[in-house]
């Protein structure tokens, strides 16, 4: 398979993720859409990696995975904290840092 196919698929997944961030209001789903975008980036990195003949892209993808895990942990912590304090889980209401 040509690398172009993988890159176009990665662009499609990224575009779906961007539309999700623009469409949805629930912070949980927005975090899921961020995951989609990070995974699209990972797919592009991995498709370039064998074409260049070295594994640097794969290591890069692994580090991206670690960063995504950190982002998920902190984001979900914020969501749980907001839910405990009865703050509505809607990104339109979560505009200010001190409400």
């Amino acid at each position, binding site marked *: 398979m040509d690398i172009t196919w993988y890159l176009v698929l990665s*662009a499609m997944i990224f575009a779906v993720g961007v539309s999700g961030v623009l469409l949805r209001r629930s912070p*949980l789903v927005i975090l899921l859409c961020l995951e989609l975008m990070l995974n699209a980036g990972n797919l592009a990195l991995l498709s370039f990696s*064998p074409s260049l003949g070295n594994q640097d892209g794969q290591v890069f993808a692994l580090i991206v*995975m670690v960063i995504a895990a950190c982002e998920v942990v902190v984001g979900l912590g914020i969501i*749980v904290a907001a839910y405990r*304090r009865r703050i509505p889980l809607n990104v339109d209401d979560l505009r200010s840092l001190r409400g």
Partner: protein
Amino acid sequence: MTQVCFFLGAIGCLGGAIAVIALRNPFYSVLALIVHLISLAGLFLLLQGEFIAAAQIVVYAGAVMVLYVFVAAYVGNVDEPLWEPIPGQRFIAPVLGLALFVELAIAITGSGLKAIDTTGPTVELGFGSPSAIGKLLLERFLIAFEAASLLLLIAAVGAVVLAGRHGAGDATSETG
């Protein structure tokens, strides 16, 4: 054979991704993301990233998604309000996403990279195997590896502080 595997994986990936943003219940969105991640791991295997595919299944589809399922079940079904802060956002957003895809596709197909329409050079046996990736991580990319581990530690401490039962957040709300 490769084509069949690629298209099966691509259909799983795209279907999962669209289901994530189309389903109204966040719990089902999380399950759709698991489908997406597992299909993506299959594509990683096609791209000779054995270790990354395994890490994707174990770390992402396993650990991270368990965290998501737990939070989605804890928070429950949050009903999203139907009013729109920007008029017509529901119609503008997919159009913008489509425009972004068209732009990216033009950039990919119009790039001057010579190897982009080939399958790339044949790589040696053991490309992307755990031993090769581990050797790279502990030799050339040692600083990135250590920085990532430090970042994970900070994130874990931050999550405990944020979501703890008597965490710092509650204390500041009482005093301040």
